[in-house]
């Protein structure tokens, strides 16, 4: 009885998931692609190339990128049974540009459904680290709400704060170089590492100065694409619209068929008795 009820609930949830996803696919199909130079406020679909506002470095693979997302899972292997548990996950929130040849617009990635194929996986037992990223020059599909950056929930429009955070990180790194002399093969290697971090700090300080001159440290008034309050769909993907729609179709068909089968099984079992 409990198993049948569980099957019924799981079936209903799967069907609902398929319906919700088919809604997203329909929204994509119903929305023509806008050009950046003439995009109107509200929900829009844009296609273009990712361009940096500032360069980030992904935390594990150390890749230069514009956006990253990571997940750290711990694998427990009891001989017969192998399972994984997510222990840490996170993503960057810094906006980047999307350029479609007619103009460029900021993209605030907070709250986006990321469908990325650019993925790096590494194993550091018992941990498995998966990292997704968007790199400069990658072609992107973005469907979201166009508005002012400060209107988006969780948007990282205080770029100056982001720079300060990055500066703190670099100072921490410099302190680490001094604190752990054993990690270096000799005083020369340690000095070279110290020089590299100092150079990064100098470059970042220059960037902060020029950024403050250009924008008074505030990006909030800039037009951007983000997660709107009244619109559920906000997708960023490095796949083409066609591939993305196909991916949605496959997962919908799978979820719908599995959900339907579970519901039929549960109802059949109930009827049997």
């Amino acid at each position, binding site marked *: 009885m409990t198993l049948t009820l569980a099957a019924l609930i799981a079936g209903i949830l799967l069907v609902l998931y398929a319906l919700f996803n088919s809604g997203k696919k329909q929204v994509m199909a119903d929305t023509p692609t806008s050009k950046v*130079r003439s995009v109107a406020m509200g929900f829009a679909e844009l296609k273009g190339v990712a361009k940096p506002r500032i360069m980030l470095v992904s935390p594990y693979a150390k890749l230069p990128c514009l956006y990253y997302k990571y997940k750290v899972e711990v694998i427990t292997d009891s001989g017969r049974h192998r399972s994984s548990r997510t222990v840490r996950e996170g993503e960057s929130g810094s906006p980047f540009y999307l350029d479609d040849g007619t103009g460029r617009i900021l993209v605030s990635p907070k709250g986006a459904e990321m469908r990325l194929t650019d993925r790096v996986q590494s194993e550091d037992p018992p941990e498995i680290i998966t990292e997704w990223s968007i790199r400069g020059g990658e072609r992107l599909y973005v469907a979201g709400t166009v508005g002012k950056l400060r209107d988006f929930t969780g948007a990282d429009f205080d770029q100056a704060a982001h720079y300060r955070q990055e500066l703190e990180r670099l100072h921490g790194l410099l302190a680490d170089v001094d604190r752990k002399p054993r990690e270096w093969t000799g005083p020369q290697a340690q000095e070279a590492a110290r020089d590299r971090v100092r150079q990064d700090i100098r470059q970042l300080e220059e960037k902060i100065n020029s950024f403050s001159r250009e924008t008074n440290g505030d990006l909030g008034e800039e037009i951007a694409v983000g997660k709107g309050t009244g619109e559920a769909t906000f997708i960023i993907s490095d796949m083409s619209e066609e591939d993305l729609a196909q991916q949605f179709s496959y997962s919908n068909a799978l979820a719908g068929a599995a959900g339907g089968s579970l519901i039929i099984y549960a109802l059949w079992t109930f009827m049997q008795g």
Partner: protein
Amino acid sequence: MEMLWIALPVLAAATGLAYIVKLYNELVRVAVNVEKSWANITVLEKQRYEEVPRLVEICNAYMKYERGTFLKITQARAQFLEATTPSATARADRQLESGLKTLFATVENYPDLKAEENFRRLQGRITALENAIADRREFYNDSVAVFNTRIGQVPYTFIAGLFGYSEQDMYQVPPEETEPVAVTFGGGR
């Protein structure tokens, strides 16, 4: 067991109703997209018409003998302000666009005006607005194409007929604007 025989048809009816609601909501969304994309063109057209009096004022100071062109432009603006239907708006737009084209071509003969900072700024702004209007017309036609396709497809066509949705007109470029431009090479004796 008996409860199930009652529950099954109710479940089937609820699923059917939910499906019809889903189809109807999808039609509403594409219809609203068409309306919104038309309204978004009008917003930019208004901005363009607001720049016209300033442009005419600057040009008037330099181009004393181009009254015909100015008249065409100001008449188009008056027509736009009075227009209440999309076709009347489109007529005014065509007249303005043709007037502006003539004006910007004639400016070549007035180097002082061409060098004037305010004129260059206005010309740049109007050209940018025209590009954006052209993009939004294209977007409007895409939205209409999605809508017209949808209401012609089964099962949407039944719902569309039930709720009185009918095909929408696309923004048409007049035939004279699609004809090749006649270029006359000067320098003859």
